[in-house]
């Protein structure tokens, strides 16, 4: 029973005689629509309805409702809002990154924050819609990270056609058959999988098939305040001197603190689990440690891991890092010159570069960014994740499949635009292009599109694993547990989680 039919019963029994009608929700801008039925009656019988389409062309699917309503005003609204069926092919795209229409007037260049994720993607989708008038691209913008809603959509049998997810989440959906390989779409669009960078390919390939169009790779970087580095004597010409071993890092950090009175590292440590884990992954990879022997078994209590955690604990114990800051505080702290190196993501490059170009700001002409230096051996690498566009496993017409292929091709063609966010490009030709390399600091980090490594492609629940490990590392670094105990606990908890998966 629907609530409104209940309301109808109540109203018809106790309050008013009713008129009869159908109503349903149209997409934003489409208004509430109703259809007039034959003469008013107070019957409570429910009837099936014929399909209704709104001005936006949306197929009503599960939102059709059949209830009795009285006000004629709804009838008028319905008549105004509905129109005959559209011939356009409709596909639904779901994305995160927020809503910023105020910054991007439709079909115009952004008026604010032109290199922001939201602004770039909004502009791109506008452009796709403008250039493909035969496709009715419906866009769902969902709250980050969007997985609650996506899972709910799958559970309800109503997933979007194309959805942006993290590469690290692909195994969760792939193993359950909820997404399909995109290779046929890429083939249809004339895109060769070899066109992507190695890091991008790693992120979307499962058992030899691509399960997503890689859109970017992102990772943690060393954001460096070169003004403070110079003050500490840690610059060689215009380049910061980076440590090449744990001992060198500690020596630099002590020297830095003595010279500037400030901590060497700025770290987000409160309400933060991801950063610890990413640091650990990067330096395990740096030591070429195989910590996932199989996708369902992690090995963490190892000499390699203990060395890494020991280093970060020593940095913490000696006061060589900021403490008790959450992500906003640490991001702002680095911007205001509170420390020498901020361990932050690729997405911060634009923000800090803007500050470096603004006179009077602490970072003015004093900003550089580098990949994590190799501290535990010569193998230069970093843990990377990324965003990818995946295609849901649902029934689609040939026209809809063609529309999906065109959308993916469009995104592929505009990889450079997206790389302005600071994220690493996924198309090798873009990574090699002068246009990309001439963006600020990109020459310094582009190597990561080759050296970056994701976790093995069949490891599920990577977000949950990240939280568990981060939780235990926080305990170890702040002294609530011994390093040995924390790593043992992390290993046990992660393996317990993986053991119970499909």
């Amino acid at each position: 029973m629907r609530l409104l039919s209940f309301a109808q019963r109540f109203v018809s029994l106790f309050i008013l005689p009713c008129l009869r009608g159908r109503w349903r929700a149209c997409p934003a801008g489409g208004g509430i629509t109703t259809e007039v039925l034959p003469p008013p009656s107070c019957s409570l019988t429910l009837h099936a309805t014929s399909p209704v389409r709104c001005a936006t062309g949306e197929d009503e699917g599960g939102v059709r409702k059949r209830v009795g309503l009285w006000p004629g005003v709804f009838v008028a609204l319905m008549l105004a809002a509905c129109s005959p069926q559209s011939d356009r092919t409709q596909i639904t795209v779901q994305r995160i990154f927020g809503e910023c229409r105020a910054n991007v007037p439709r079909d115009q260049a952004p008026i604010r924050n032109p290199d922001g994720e939201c602004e770039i993607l909004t502009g791109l989708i506008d452009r796709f819609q403008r250039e493909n008038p035969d496709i009715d691209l419906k866009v769902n913008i969902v709250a980050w990270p969007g997985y609650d809603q996506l899972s709910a959509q799958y559970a309800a049998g109503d997933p979007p056609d194309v959805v942006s997810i993290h590469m690290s989440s692909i195994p969760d959906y792939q193993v359950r058959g909820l997404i399909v390989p995109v290779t046929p779409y890429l083939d249809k669009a004339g895109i060769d999988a070899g066109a992507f960078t190695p890091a991008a390919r790693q992120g979307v390939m499962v058992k030899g098939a691509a399960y997503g169009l890689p859109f970017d790779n992102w990772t943690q970087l060393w954001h460096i305040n070169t003004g403070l580095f110079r003050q500490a004597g840690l610059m060689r010409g215009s380049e910061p001197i980076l440590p090449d071993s744990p001992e060198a890092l500690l020596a630099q950090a002590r020297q830095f603190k003595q010279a500037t009175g400030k901590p060497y590292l700025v770290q987000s440590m409160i309400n933060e689990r991801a950063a610890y884990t990413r640091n650990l992954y990067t330096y395990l990879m740096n030591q070429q440690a195989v910590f996932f022997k199989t996708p369902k078994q992690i090995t963490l209590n190892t000499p390699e891991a203990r060395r890494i955690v020991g280093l970060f604990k020593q940095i913490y114990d000696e006061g060589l890092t900021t403490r008790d800051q959450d992500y906003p505080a640490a991001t702002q702290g680095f911007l205001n010159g509170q420390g020498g190196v901020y361990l932050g993501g690729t997405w911060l490059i634009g923000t800090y570069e803007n500050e470096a170009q603004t006179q009077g700001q602490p970072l003015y002409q004093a900003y550089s960014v580098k990949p994590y230096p190799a501290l535990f051996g010569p193998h230069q690498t970093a843990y990377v994740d990324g965003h990818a566009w995946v295609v849901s496993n649902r029934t689609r017409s040939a026209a809809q499949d063609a529309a999906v292929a065109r959308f993916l091709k469009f995104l592929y063609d505009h990889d450079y635009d997206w790389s302005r966010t600071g994220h690493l490009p996924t198309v090798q030709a873009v990574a090699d292009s002068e246009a990309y390399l001439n963006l600020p600091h990109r020459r310094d980090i582009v190597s990561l599109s080759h050296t970056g490594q994701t976790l093995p492609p069949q490891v599920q629940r990577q977000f949950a694993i990240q939280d568990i490990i981060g939780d235990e590392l926080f305990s170890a670094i702040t002294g609530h547990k011994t390093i040995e105990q924390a790593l043992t606990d992390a290993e046990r908890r992660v393996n317990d989680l993986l053991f119970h998966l499909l």
Partner: protein
Amino acid sequence: MSLTRHQAGRVRGSVVLIVLIALGLIMLAPLIWTLMLSLKANSELLRSTTNAFHAPYTLENYVAILQNSGVFRWLFNSVLVAGLTTLGVLILSSLAGYGFARLEFPFRDVLFVIVLFGLAIPEQAVIITRHQMFAALNLHNSYPGLILPGLAAPFGVFLMTQYFRAIPKELDEAAMLDNASRLKIFWKVLLPLTLPAQATLGIFTFLAAWNDYWWPLISATRPEMFTLTVGIASSQINFAQTSGLGYLMTQAVFASVPILIVYVFFQKYIVRAVAGQAVR
């Protein structure tokens, strides 16, 4: 020197007043902070949130919210969902409360206990089952899908039952002597007496429905069906807490304005409800 009783009373009153003002300021501080942050440009707040204490101020975040294509639709959805949920809860709880308090029927006490069990079951325990059920009934992305779960209100039934029980039965008997039907007694005699409880229940139900985030998040997955809470969350950029702080605060202010309006109009009943005077 000893104070007279009158003077002592005045001193005591002043101390209480000062303490209350201090507590009031502590309560207000986050709200004022939120409001001030909402009036600042995001780029300024990125550098320092202490900028909130200095001019210039701007309305650009409010303009940005109003330019969001979906916001008025979400507002409409929230009003509709919260309003109909409230209406439904009042109707059902009143009828059920009357039934449990006044009517004799088989298994009445058992049924009442079963209803009360609902108070002990958290939403988290039933959310998956409920989601599957609503999916099977094709109720997701619909107004009934958003409203129906809120109608199961054991607290409302309990409150109204207790309230009806507190009304003397002699009133019913007097009305029966005048040949009034059960429905008429309920509608004309008893229901008007329960208005304070109805107001309390209505306010709490409206607030809960308005602020609900979790169920709309997983039931309304199409933007046209978002409620305001889900809609404004979806419009947040990633890392809004750093590069979009002003906008974030503006969203909080915008979402709370309707609730403030409700509060202004129903202040008397809310205070009475919180003070526990709604149930005699």
